[in-house]
């Protein structure tokens, strides 16, 4: 400790020494106590956290996860430059949204027509494999976003389109006609633009600047196809 005390004291005499310059001169001797405890406040909290989630009731777990999902929904509906979606990614939200969308978009099993709307599995595959393809594409182009973070963002940004699907199904209860179609078209277009804006707000920063358009175009195509499936949904 004696040597390190000298170093700041020397600064008044000569030119300012760079940081850690004198460290190489230190030899560890018996006098310097090198044992001790480094206490990081976060660490103990995390340890308590880990052990407590095993013992807590299922209701607590579910409520906590639902709250996390709900918070992310809010971040998608009001897209701001925040890192919450990226930092604490989870795939519950995308799963809930994808299953809801696929349940609403599927054609009924009694419908035996060959050319109808998509089946449940087709919607599921399009959403998940589309998201995986876009993620791989953005990683191959040199983006520095992780695989699951990108899946999380793309999945959560389907929320506006799911809302559009709900609205379209309600509107379809009214009588069919050009006004019906125009309202649905309007709603789907707005939600499509909202999805693109929300996902671009999160994803565009992860790409090098001269490849942003290359990474955003597949996202545009993905949400366009989902919007098309929503718009052409006809109840049997």
């Amino acid at each position, binding site marked *: 400790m004696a040597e390190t005390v000298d170093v700041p004291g020397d600064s008044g005499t000569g030119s300012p020494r760079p940081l850690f310059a004198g460290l190489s001169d230190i030899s560890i001797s018996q006098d310097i106590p090198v044992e001790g405890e480094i206490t990081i406040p976060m660490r103990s909290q995390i340890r308590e956290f880990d052990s407590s989630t095993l013992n807590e009731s299922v209701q607590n777990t579910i409520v906590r996860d639902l709250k996390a999902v709900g918070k992310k929904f809010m971040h998608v509906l009001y897209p701001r430059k925040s890192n919450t979606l990226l930092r604490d990614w989870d795939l519950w939200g995308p799963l809930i949204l994808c299953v809801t969308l696929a349940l609403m978009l599927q054609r009924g099993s009694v419908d035996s027509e060959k*050319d109808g709307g998509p089946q449940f599995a087709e919607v599921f595959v399009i959403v998940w494999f589309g998201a995986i393809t876009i993620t791989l594409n953005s990683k*191959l182009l040199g983006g520095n976003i992780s695989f699951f973070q990108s899946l999380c963002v793309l999945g959560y940004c389907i929320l506006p389109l799911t809302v559009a699907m709900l609205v379209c199904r309600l509107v379809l209860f009214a009588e069919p006609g050009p006004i019906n179609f125009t309202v649905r078209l309007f709603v789907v277009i707005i939600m499509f633009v909202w999805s693109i804006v929300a996902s671009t707000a999160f994803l565009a920063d992860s790409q090098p600047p001269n*490849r942003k358009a290359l990474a955003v175009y597949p996202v545009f195509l993905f949400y366009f196809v989902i919007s098309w499936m929503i718009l052409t949904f006809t109840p049997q």
Partner: protein
Amino acid sequence: MTRFARVEGHRRSVGRDPRGGVQRRRERPAGPTRSPACGGDHGPRPGGAGGRRRRHGGEAPGRAPQAWAELSWRQADMRAGSSQLPQAERQQPGFWTFEYYQSFFDVDTSQVLDRIKGSLLPRPGHSFLRHCLRHRPDLYGPFWICASLTFALAISGNLSLLLAQRRDPSLHYTPQFHKVTAAGITVYCYVSLVPLALWGFLRWHGGARGRPRRPLGFLETVCLYGYSLSPFVPAAVLWFVPVAWLHWLLGGLALGLSAAGLVMALWPLLRGDPRVMVAALLSTVLLLHSLLALGCELYFFQPLPPVPPAPLTTALPPGSQLPAGTPRTTGT
């Protein structure tokens, strides 16, 4: 002390002096020194720029441990090096690594746009292979152009069915989702199998004749075919308008541009070959391309049905056929 000694040993074993290494890297030219391709001069590579950024971040004076910085330098160097050297001189990572596939996506937005422009508007004398690809094929363009074409065909075809149904209510409108699968399989198989056949044939033929010229790579052939499908995307989008002469016009235009690009790219490679073989090869390529265009147009798009004849109601003068769906007024 032991901590620093270990780092020093590591650096020595790598055989690099950080300061010398940094200077060596600084001497490398800023960007690829080649003439502008496809009408654009491209800025420094992103790998190079990112690598340089990381190098500056790791350049700490003194003996601060730089093992982690050196690893990231080496990664950035490999990426920068891989993007600045032509493909033949790159050190190829193994096909099981992610970097191997990353080398196929090493393009910028401006380059992709230039390549699309080069294939949409082929200029005689400017081979797509030589001027746009410049021996640096990418997989981004072919993959996403095929995806766009798939969805353009399916969605546009569905729109044409919708418009046909409005003319003739007896048709039943359905979303026809199976056409997406059909379009995808057709387009992706075309862009992978036909280049494979062409590449195989050119390799076999070149090998048989002992040709000294650099053979066409498989990826370059896939790239050529993928970008050559780009005129079909706007044609597919506009094909939803159910007017017969417009279909023929758009189809002919797209096929002409696409085929011209292909022929102009393949022509320099076939110089010195017997004319019969060249003619046969080029006509096969053109025939397959036309089959694709014709098949897509016929399968995915619904021709406008003729106006259904009006039922014989009272006092409708002949020749004043009202289209179906409008209210008919009996009596004139």
